[in-house]
């Protein structure tokens, strides 16, 4: 399942990524042959349930996976044309924070409790400065800290306060400031609003949207909330059991007629304010045990439209424009069996 795009144009290109976790008891197949790409300035949403492998993918890009248990078994991750997986420790450290930065899920625990927020933002700048020959002075860096705080809507004079003096939403803004500090080309945001109140969620998202437009940064937004994707993403990838089972632009996936049965289930399970129903429509069954994945299409045990071929063969992508669906239903060869028309 490889992509066909010119590597030189894309900012980030992930090819056939496979990641496992090995523990004493079992092997967890977290990411199973994942590929996607991202152009400069684009925002891509990575959607899926908990356990789909979204965070693992994100951490793999920056090589932040726990050393002892996680192993990147295969794949390539091209960032600005260079394979990140082949870099050594020193080189990857140069990319972190400066080329690609990350926003983590829980702002309550992402900040060091005994350092001021100013110091934590300063640290990013300091590292960048160090990597580039140390030409900037302390005053310049401090000024930038002030600038960043204003950018995210925090008064600069609060920079000597400690994280525990900020609310959850404000903490996340600090995290955003840290992420933006060195003008990275790509920001990976792992469920940045999940741990926040709904009203604060909206604020933080709005902030991220404004900032990304202002700075032209690409964004990978990991979330399980389709509403958020609709709001700020250009493209969307739907993940299931470590694979991308559907991807395309937001219009194609949200408004298109054809959807992967899983995606259909996701949309169908969102309660609609306007329709009267008696029950919610969850997708039946549970995500498969990642230590014991089903053969063939990984969704087939829960799929209403499952066919015999689904149990043995992993589906290839069926394409329509930039819309891709990994499902046998749409595969041209099986047109006789499938109730769906070809794409």
């Amino acid at each position: 399942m490889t992509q066909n795009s010119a590597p030189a144009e894309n900012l980030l290109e992930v090819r056939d990524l496979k990641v496992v976790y090995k523990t004493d008891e079992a092997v967890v197949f977290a990411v199973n042959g994942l590929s996607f790409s991202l152009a400069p300035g684009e925002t891509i949403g990575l959607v899926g349930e908990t356990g789909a492998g979204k965070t693992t993918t994100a951490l793999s890009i920056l090589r932040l996976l726990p050393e002892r248990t996680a192993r990147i078994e295969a794949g390539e991750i091209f960032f600005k044309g260079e394979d990140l997986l082949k870099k050594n420790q020193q080189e990857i450290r140069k990319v972190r924070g400066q080329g690609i930065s990350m926003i983590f899920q829980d702002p309550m625990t992402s900040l060091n409790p005994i350092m001021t927020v100013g110091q934590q933002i300063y640290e990013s700048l300091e590292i960048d400065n160090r990597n580039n020959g140390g030409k900037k002075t302390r005053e310049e860096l401090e000024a930038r800290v002030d600038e960043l705080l204003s950018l995210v809507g925090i008064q600069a004079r609060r920079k000597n306060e400690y994280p525990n003096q900020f609310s959850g939403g404000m903490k996340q803004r600090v995290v955003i400031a840290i992420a933006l500090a060195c003008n990275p080309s790509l920001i990976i945001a792992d469920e940045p609003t999940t741990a926040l109140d709904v009203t604060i969620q909206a604020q933080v998202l709005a902030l991220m949207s404004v900032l990304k437009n202002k700075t032209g940064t690409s964004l990978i937004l990991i979330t399980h909330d389709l509403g958020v994707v609709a709001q700020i993403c250009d493209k969307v990838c739907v993940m299931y059991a470590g694979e991308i089972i559907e991807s395309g632009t937001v219009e194609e996936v949200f408004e298109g007629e054809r959807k992967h049965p899983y995606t259909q289930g996701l949309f169908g399970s969102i309660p609609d304010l306007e329709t009267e129903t008696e029950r919610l429509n969850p997708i039946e069954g549970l995500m498969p045990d990642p230590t014991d994945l089903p053969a063939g299409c990984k969704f087939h045990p829960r799929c209403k439209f499952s066919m015999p071929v689904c149990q043995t063969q992993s589906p290839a992508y069926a394409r329509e424009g930039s819309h891709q669906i990994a499902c046998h239903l749409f595969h041209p060869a099986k047109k006789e069996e499938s109730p769906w028309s070809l794409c």
Partner: protein
Amino acid sequence: MNYAKIQEAFPQTTEYKKKSQLPEMWRRLKKNKTAMLGLAIIVIILLAAIFADLIVPYSLAVEQNPSARLKGPSSEHWFGTDAYGRDIFARIIHGARFSLLTGIAAVVVGFILGGVLGAAAGYYGGIADSVIMRILDTIMCIPFLVLALAIVAALGTGLVNVLLALMLSSVPTYARIVRSAILTVVDQDFIEAARACGTPNSVIIFKHVMPNAIGPIIVQTTMSVGMMIKDAAAMSFLGMGIQPPSPEWGAMLSEGKSYMMYAAHIVVIPGLAIAVTALALNLMGDGLRDVLDPRLKD
């Protein structure tokens, strides 16, 4: 009693939990070789203590034999003899009784007393909590040996007073453990539910809260016994504890000190006995902690 009726309706719940956890924990403990080593050593020492009389007669441990003084280890005297000609091996074996007895008794009583106090403090909260904890904290402020010496000074030497001193010093630690276990649980909803059903407080504490505390208590207990044994030996060393001619390990060290230069084994062997016992207990305690609180593994 309403509680009994509920138990009738759901007899499976408590039983199921207990059965499934124990064999699983044993299996995990077995994997830890050092812990198993510790366990083996402790079992050996325990057996030696229990069956001491069968291994060597007590008389051998206390009978003086001036003609055989300060002899090194030999086939006749496995560990050699001390300044009075007594067989050291025999003294070590019988001394095991004192040490283990002291350690275990001190810990058990400390645990019961401390547990009750901690439970009361945590469960009832408020003034009872503050007062109890303040008093216990104050006891902790007095360096253990100083407290022990003070008690012995007041009440005299001997096994019972040593035990008393040791117990007193372990009570605050257990009280804290039990109290924190209770505090983590006491706000939770199922306690409210149990109270709403009219369950008496004591039942709540025993059936619901204690299981939470068992883990840290077990770990603390295992390690404490080792510490108590060391401390009891220290007190005997100072002449405050068990008096001669009882073959207590610490007392043996105290007696042997003057003869160190001629016959080092007098001092090496009893100390080694204390160290090995404490080490075995610590190894077991560590292993138990890994099993009961596996957060710190990968």
